[in-house]
């Protein structure tokens, strides 16, 4: 009986994950039956109970598209791509949702091209492995041996290569680069103003589905930057971060 609390915890965890799996199965069944609104709700519930999954976000986005909620669908496609940047169907679906929202396609930078091709976690692990291999090879050069210079050279090369891979993974990982990025879900979009006041000069309009970097917050106003570089203030209502807060 000593281990009974641990057993209870394990049982609770198992039952929780089973319940999550049931909700997900139900959501998928609803989706197949064409009950898209209900399916979207169940996908959302499933995500609340289980760890985040690119596939579930994608499926939820597709259900939302069917119910005409393109902006929310775009948010879920974004999230699916953050979790799995190589998820091609999510990328296509996001482009389609953006087209439907009237958001012009943004130009792909080198980072987007990297994450489309290389799994970032693998890149990070490879970089870490090379880094430590280099570090230990360099260390081996301290011991008296005939291969001392070669070990030092190999160690330096591995170290440099590992650091390079880690740098690329750091710069490309959307979970790092999109920490302060948000999407506009407000119906009809929201105006970008020159100062945090309702009557201030309008710089631009942020249509529904726009992506914006939040730089700071003052009361009910965000100060942010558009992908084009323009900066201004906009209301916090209807602005949802791409990466959900912990």
């Amino acid at each position: 009986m000593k281990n009974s609390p641990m057993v209870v915890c394990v049982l609770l965890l198992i039952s929780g994950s089973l319940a999550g799996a049931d909700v997900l199965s139900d959501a998928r069944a609803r989706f197949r039956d064409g009950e898209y609104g209900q399916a979207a709700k169940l996908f959302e519930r499933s995500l609340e109970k289980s760890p985040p999954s690119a596939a579930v976000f994608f499926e939820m986005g597709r259900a939302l598209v069917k119910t005409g909620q393109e902006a929310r669908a775009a948010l879920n496609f974004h999230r699916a791509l953050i979790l799995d940047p190589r998820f091609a169907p999510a990328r296509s679906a996001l482009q389609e949702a953006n087209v439907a929202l009237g958001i012009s396609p943004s130009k792909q930078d080198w980072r987007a091209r990297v994450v489309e091709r290389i799994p970032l976690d693998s890149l990070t692990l490879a970089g870490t492995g090379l880094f430590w291999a280099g570090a230990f090879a360099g260390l081996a050069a301290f011991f008296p041996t005939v291969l001392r210079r070669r070990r030092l050279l190999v160690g330096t090369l591995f170290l440099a290569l590992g650091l390079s891979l880690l740098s690329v993974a750091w710069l490309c990982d959307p979970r790092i680069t999109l920490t302060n990025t948000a999407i506009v879900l407000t119906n009809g979009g929201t105006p970008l103003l020159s100062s945090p006041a309702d009557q201030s000069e309008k710089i631009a309009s942020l249509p529904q589905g726009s992506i914006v970097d939040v730089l700071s917050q003052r009361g009910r106003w965000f100060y942010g930057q558009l992908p084009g570089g323009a900066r201004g203030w906009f209301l916090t209502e209807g602005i949802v971060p791409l990466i959900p807060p912990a």
Partner: protein
Amino acid sequence: MTGKTMKRVFVVLAILLPLCLRGQEVAAGLSGNQAQVGEPVQLMVTVRGARGAEVPQKLSVKGLQINLAGRSTQFEMRNFKMSSTLTYTYLVVPQFEGEFTIPSFDVQIEGKTFRTQAMKLSVSGDARAPQVPGLPQQNAGPLPSGQPVSADEGEPFFADLILSKKKVFVGEVVPLELRFYFNSRIGGQVGERPNFGGEGFTVQKFSNAVKREQVVNGTNYTVFSFQSAITAVKSGTLEIPEATLDARLQLPGKAPQGFDSFFNNFPLPQGMFTDNRDVSLKTKPMRIEVLPLPKDGRPEDFSGAVGKFTMEASVSPRKASAGEPVTLKVAVSGQGNFEGMGTPLLTGDEGWRSYPPSDKFQSTDAVGFTGEKTFEFPLIARQDQTRTPGVRFSYFDPSTEKYGVLAQDPLEVDAKAGGAPPPASGTPAAPPGDEPAPPAAPPSTPDVAAMSGGSSSWTALFFRKEFLIANASLAAAWLAVFLIAALRKFPQSRAGREMARKKHLRDAFAGLRDVEPAGFYERAKDCIFLRFDAGGDDLATAAKIDSSPLPPEFKASLHRVIERHGESKYAAGGAAPPSVEERQAVISMLKELETRYEK
């Protein structure tokens, strides 16, 4: 206002008037450039910025009888600036038919001579339909709605509606103009926009008022003109109701009671006493005939556009990667009902996924009758494509009363097929082209889940606990190995050796005081050897002492200690043990040696 105050105002005005009258100019014009024999026409000479002018009493032109009929003065004060207008009116009576030119003539103002421009008058003898003098001639275009209510001379205000057509088609945009005439002598304010509307037609937003001067029946009028366009929405006879414009006018009034009769002897400026009156100017209602669009020849894809149009198309980008949309931009320009027209039709778009286009209208006139409407079709290739869909646009041309079709051939493009999700499991894949546009078949969710890899955490690997622990462990291991290696290598290193030497030196030095007298020089020699690090070789140590920068007497003392050690070790019977003083002196010397080397 009392009579005394009135007097003061008058005196002030009398003083200010000459100061305020500036910028003299002269203009002349006829009330109409066409007339019949015997029908009088007025020639008005307007002088601005002067209190008086000298003009000829009569002008002699063969075939025309031109006599000065009178003069009038108008003062106006705006923003405390006074201006005056003198109008000299001549009556021109044509004597016979023909084309006449009234030559320019001189007008003298305060010693300066101004000259009017020459004017032309066409005189006919034919009986013609009554014409509204002063209104511009309608050249097969706009038709006046009828005689303005001001046909009588001196009417203070009236309104007119001019419609370019009286027979139109359903959906055809017909420009119209509303003109509101006010006698130039009347001041006041007019409403910003006229009220106009009715059943059976829609009205475009009115343009801003255009203000101009015009002479009608010999009277100067200020005309406010508003442009718009109407579109009939049903066939039959369409009643165009009156359009109204509200105004608050300052009509000439009488001097109030109490105004000193003395001042009645002076010519008082006009506008000095006015009556404010709210009026509503109304145009006359009219009728137009609205024809239905013909059924014969109507294309099946008729867009609803009525007018005259041209079409151009372009695509961007010309190269698109998988899933990337391209935009087919179609610009329809010309004249017509841009608001009511439908979108152009895409042809041959089976390999594309197209979405409803966005549209933007750029008008080149004030009422949205002429301009360019741009449609942007987002397209995503379902299969690899080298050409865009074609475009077709049909419209009805009211001028030819026929339907027209504009067609655009496909444009060259290089678009890769998008990575659309696979069709549902168990559902046969639809052949390309049969798949309905945007909503593709729902994907099999298990398949989708299988396609997705990725992470199950919002935290990047760099910040995950397991990653950090693994790296910390590796770092600790590396550090441990490094320390072991360093410790093993240290004794062989220069620093290690130096450290060991120093330790021996310290030990040797420490034992000097307590050592047996027989072993004193042995230890003292060890201290010197360790200091010079000569490896126990007497000659090498001696050489190092000699080459050191120590003072010669100090070097000699060191040599002496080494010699004394030799004596104590090798002399027969041994050397005498060192005295306490001698030991103290050697210890002091060795201390000084250390001090010197430490420095």
